[in-house]
C-alpha cells in the first residue's frame, strides 16, 4: 500500500485535530471480575480458569466487589459522577477467545460519567472531559504463532478471560498528539497513584484507541472521524496520531473525503492502515445482562470508598508547595509517581530539611538512578539513609562537598552515612577553637592578602576561605570559616 504524500507543516497549521481517546485499564484486583480465579500474569495457558470464565454451559457471573470499588476510585479521581444505579450489559460478538460469545460490559447506564482530568500541555493547563467510565471483562488470548502447527491452528489461552477492565472514554477535547500524550500520562499517573492499576502498557494493562478527525481552524463542526487502534505505547500513540492527522489533512487538501472506518496502527511502518470494513461492521446487540442485578451503589458505600482514597497528584503538588515551600516545578517532579513522592516525603521527614531533601532527590539521587536505569523503588539508598545524610549537612556535621562523596560511597556499599563518616573520620570542623587555629595559621602564611583585604579589596576573602578549607582537608565548615575570618580581619 502506497503512503500518502504527507502535507508540510504550513498546510498542517491551517487544520486542527479533534481527538478522543478510549482507554482500557486492567484493574489490579487479585481475582477476576465475575469469578474467583486469580488474575496473575504469565501462568501456563488455561490454568487460571473455572466454569464461569470458561463460559461453560450453566455457569453464572458474580460481580467482584473489589473491581467495583477500584472503578469507583478511578471515577472519583477523574471527577466523575457515579451513578447510584448502573447496569451491566451484554456486548455480543463472536471471537474464539471470547468464550461466552459476549462480553459483560456496560452500555447506556455506565458506572460513572461527566468527569475531567487536568492536563498540562504546551505550558498551559487544560481540562479534558471524561465522558464515561464503565466496567467490563477482558477476553482471552488467541495465539496465532509459536506452535509447530501454527500454520493450521490458532491456540486459545483463557487465563486472561474475565480479567476486570475499566474503559475510560474521553470527550473529543484533545487537539494535538502532544496533548493526547499528556492526557494518557496524566491518566496513568492518577490511576497508579490510587492503586487501581499498574498501567503497565507492555503487559497490556493499559490499552488505547483513538478517534481522530481534522477540520480547518475556526470550523466548529467535527470532520469525519477514523478510529485508530493498537496504540499500545506512548511512542506509538504520538506517532500514530501524527500520521493519521497528516493523512486526513492530505486527503482533504487533495479534494478527497475521509471515510469513517477503523484503522490499525502498524508500528513497523509508522502508518495507519484501514481494516476491511467487514471486520468491524459489528452490531453488538447490547441488552441488559439478565444474570446480574443492577449495580446499586449506596451513598454509604460510595463515601466509604471515598474515605479510602489516597491523596491525588494535584492535591499532593499543592500540599508540597504549601507545606514544604517547594517551587511549582519541583513539586511537579516530586509528585510524578506515588513512590517518588513518598520517598521524598520520607527524606524530608527524617532530615527535617524539605528543600535540601528535594534537591538531593531530584539531583544526586535522580542522576544516580538514571545512570543505572533504576526506578525509585529500586534505589540502593533508602529514603531513611538519604534523610540521615541530609540531616548531617543541615546540622553542620559535614559539608555539602563531603556529603557528595559520602553519597557515592552509600550508593556503592549501601552503608549508612553516619557509618561512613565515623569510619573515615570525616567530621566537619565547626569548633571555633579548632577553626581559629587553622585561620591564624593561614593568615600568618598570607600577609599580602591580609594587607589587601584591610586596604578595601574585600573580594580576597574568598581566597582566604579556600586556603582555610584546604588546610582543613575540606572538613572545615565553610560558613563558620567565613564568619570567623571576617571577624578576625576586622
Amino acid at each position, binding site marked *: 500500500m502506497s503512503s500518502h504524500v504527507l502535507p508540510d507543516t504550513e498546510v498542517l497549521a491551517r487544520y486542527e485535530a479533534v481527538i478522543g481517546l478510549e482507554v482500557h485499564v486492567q484493574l489490579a484486583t487479585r481475582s477476576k471480575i465475575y469469578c474467583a480465579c486469580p488474575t496473575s500474569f504469565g501462568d501456563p495457558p488455561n490454568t487460571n480458569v473455572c466454569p464461569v470464565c470458561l463460559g461453560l454451559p*450453566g455457569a453464572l457471573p458474580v460481580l467482584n466487589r473489589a473491581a467495583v470499588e477500584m472503578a469507583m476510585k478511578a471515577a472519583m479521581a477523574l471527577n466523575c459522577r457515579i451513578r447510584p444505579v448502573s447496569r451491566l450489559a451484554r456486548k455480543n460478538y463472536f471471537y474464539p477467545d471470547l468464550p461466552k*460469545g459476549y462480553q459483560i460490559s456496560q452500555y447506556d447506564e455506565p458506572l460513572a460519567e461527566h468527569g475531567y482530568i487536568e492536563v498540562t500541555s504546551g505550558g498551559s493547563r487544560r481540562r479534558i472531559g471524561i465522558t464515561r467510565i464503565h466496567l467490563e471483562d477482558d477476553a482471552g488470548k488467541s495465539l496465532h504463532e509459536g506452535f509447530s502447527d501454527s500454520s493450521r491452528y490458532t491456540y486459545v489461552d483463557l487465563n486472561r478471560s474475565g480479567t476486570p477492565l475499566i474503559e475510560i472514554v474521553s470527550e473529543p477535547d484533545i487537539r494535538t498528539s502532544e496533548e493526547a500524550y499528556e492526557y494518557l500520562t496524566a491518566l496513568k499517573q492518577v490511576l497508579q497513584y490510587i492503586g487501581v492499576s499498574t498501567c503497565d502498557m507492555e503487559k497490556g494493562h493499559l490499552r488505547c484507541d483513538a478517534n481522530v478527525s481534522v477540520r480547518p481552524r475556526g470550523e466548529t463542526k467535527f470532520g469525519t472521524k477514523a478510529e485508530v487502534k493498537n496504540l499500545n505505547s506512548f511512542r506509538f500513540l504520538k506517532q500514530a496520531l501524527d500520521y493519521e492527522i497528516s493523512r486526513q489533512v492530505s486527503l482533504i487538501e487533495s479534494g478527497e473525503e475521509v471515510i469513517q472506518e477503523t484503522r490499525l496502527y502498524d508500528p513497523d511502518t509508522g502508518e495507519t492502515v484501514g481494516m476491511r470494513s467487514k471486520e468491524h461492521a459489528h452490531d453488538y446487540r447490547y441488552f441488559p445482562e*439478565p*444474570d446480574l442485578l443492577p449495580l446499586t451503589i449506596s451513598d454509604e458505600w460510595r463515601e466509604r470508598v471515598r474515605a479510602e482514597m489516597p491523596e491525588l497528584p494535584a492535591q499532593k503538588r499543592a500540599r508540597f508547595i504549601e507545606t514544604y515551600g517547594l517551587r511549582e516545578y519541583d513539586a511537579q517532579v516530586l509528585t510524578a509517581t506515588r513512590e517518588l513522592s513518598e520517598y521524598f516525603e520520607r527524606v524530608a521527614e527524617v532530615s527535617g530539611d524539605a528543600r535540601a531533601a528535594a534537591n538531593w532527590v531530584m539531583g544526586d539521587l535522580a542522576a544516580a538512578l538514571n545512570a543505572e536505569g533504576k526506578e525509585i523503588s529500586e534505589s540502593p539508598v533508602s529514603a531513611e539513609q538519604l534523610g540521615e545524610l541530609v540531616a548531617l549537612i543541615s546540622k553542620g556535621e559535614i559539608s555539602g562537598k563531603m556529603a557528595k562523596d559520602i553519597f557515592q560511597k552509600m550508593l556503592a556499599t549501601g552503608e549508612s552515612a553516619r557509618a561512613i563518616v565515623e569510619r573515615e573520620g570525616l567530621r566537619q570542623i565547626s569548633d571555633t577553637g579548632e577553626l581559629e587555629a587553622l585561620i591564624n595559621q593561614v593568615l600568618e602564611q598570607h600577609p599580602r592578602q591580609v594587607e589587601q583585604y584591610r586596604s578595601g579589596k574585600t573580594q580576597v576573602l574568598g581566597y582566604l576561605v579556600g586556603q582555610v578549607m584546604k588546610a582543613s582537608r575540606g572538613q572545615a565548615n565553610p560558613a563558620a570559616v567565613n564568619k570567623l575570618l571576617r571577624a578576625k580581619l576586622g
Partner: protein
Amino acid sequence: MTLALEIPKLTIGSIREGLLKRRFSATELTREALRFAEAENPKTNAYLHFCPERALSAARSVDEKLARGEDPGLLAGVPVAVKDVIVTKGVRTTAASKMLADYIPPYDATAVECLDAAGAVILGKTNCDEFAMGSSNENSAFGPVRNPVDPERVPGGSSGGSAAAVAQGTAVVSLGSDTGGSVRQPASFCGVVGLTPTYGRVSRYGLIAFASSLDHIGVVARNVSDTATLLQVIAGRDERDSTSAAVPVPDYMAALNGGVRGMKIGLPREYFKDPDSETSKLVLDGVEVLKRLGCEVREISMPHTEYAVAAYYIICTAEASSNLARYDGVRYTFRSRDSETLADMYRNTRGEGFGAECKRRIMLGTYVLSAGYYDAYYLKAQKVRTLIARDFTEAFREVDALIAPVSPFPAFKLGEKLDDPMQMYLSDIYTITASLAGVPCMSVPCGVTSGGLPVGMQILTRHFDEAGMLRLAYAFERNRA
C-alpha cells in the same frame, strides 16, 4: 425380590420408611430402580442416558449413613431423574442437542449438589426439547418422548422426559426447568404434579441457560407432598447465582396441613375464554372442590394477558440468541469438520449442531436486538412484561391465589403441531404470564378428558408464597375424587 412391582408406586415417604425399617437398602433399591427404568424406558424415551455408577455411589453413601445411625437426608435413596439441561459432574449433559452430544460437565449444578446432600439417587438424565425450547418434546436431537398415558401423544415440553419418567414410574421425582411453562404443561399432559417456584427461589447455577430472566428449575412428582419435599431440598439463596433471593425458606412440608378455609381465590376471566372446552370444565370442577373446602372464589381480570405471548417470544428469543452464542465449535461443543475459515467453522458448526427450533429462536432473537429494532421489539416487550407483572400485583391485592388452566388442550398427537410453530407458541398462553412475572405456579392433576387424557389445574400465588400454593394444592389433592 418383588421390589420391581413396587417401583412405580414408591413415594419419598415409603422409601424412607422402607430404609429405616431395613426392608431394603438404598443400594438394592437403586439396582432395582435402574433395572426397571432401563427396561421401561424404550416405551417413552424419557431418559437420554443413565448414570448407574453415580447412582450406586450415592446409594452406598446413604447405606453407610444408615449403618452409622446418621440422618441420611430428606431424599435418602430416592430415585430421581434430572432434566438434561441441568449439569451433572462427570455425567454427560446434552441439553438434547447434537451440539453437546458428548459434553461431560466438570461441575454439578447447585440444585444437583442439593440433591446429593439430601441423599437422593440420580438415575439418569431426561430427554427434553433442545435447549428447553419447545412445548412437545419433539425438538430433541435424540428423538421425541412419548406420553406414558398414550404413546401416540406428546408428553408436553420442554421437560417432557422429566414428566414422563415420573408418570411412568421410572423415577419417583424429577427436576425439570420452566421458562414459559416447561414444567407445568408436561406435568399436566402426563397427569403428575409440576411446580415452578418464584424466580430466585432456586439457584440457576448449572442450569444451561435458554432465557436467563425467565429460566427456573422446577420439580415434578406424583403427589403434592413429594413435590414439597423436593422443593425444600433445592430452595434457597446461592452465592453463585446473583439473581437468587436471600428470602428465608419456610418448612414446606409443615405448611401442607394448614387449612384453606377463607382463602381468596381469583379466576382470571382472560384464562377462561373458552369455558365450554373440556379443559376449562375440568378446571372449573376443581374450583368447585376448593369452594367446598371454604375458599372464597371470585372472577378477576388480568387485562394484559393477550400481549403475553408476543412479549414472551421476544424476550426469550433475545436472551437465547446471546445465551447460545457460546456453542461455537471452539471449545467443548460439536465442531463441524473441514471448514476453511473461522467464519465457516462458526457457520457450519452452528448450522449442523442446532436443530430447527433453536435456529429459529436464535434468528428471531438476533433480529429483535439488532440496531434499529431494539426499541420497537425488545424494549417494548420489556414494558409489556412490566404491565403483566403489574396485573399479578393488582390481582394479589384482592386474592391469595389464582386458578387457571395450564394449557388450552390436553396432550396432542406427535407431529400434530410440529409444522406450525405459531400454533405451538400460542399453546403456551396460560403458562407464560407467570414466567414473565416470576410468580410461583404449579400444575395439579384435576381429572381426565372423555378421551382419558389428564388435565392439570394451575395454581399461582404471590412471590415466595410457595407454601400457600402447596397448601392449596394439597387440600385439593386430598379432597377431589
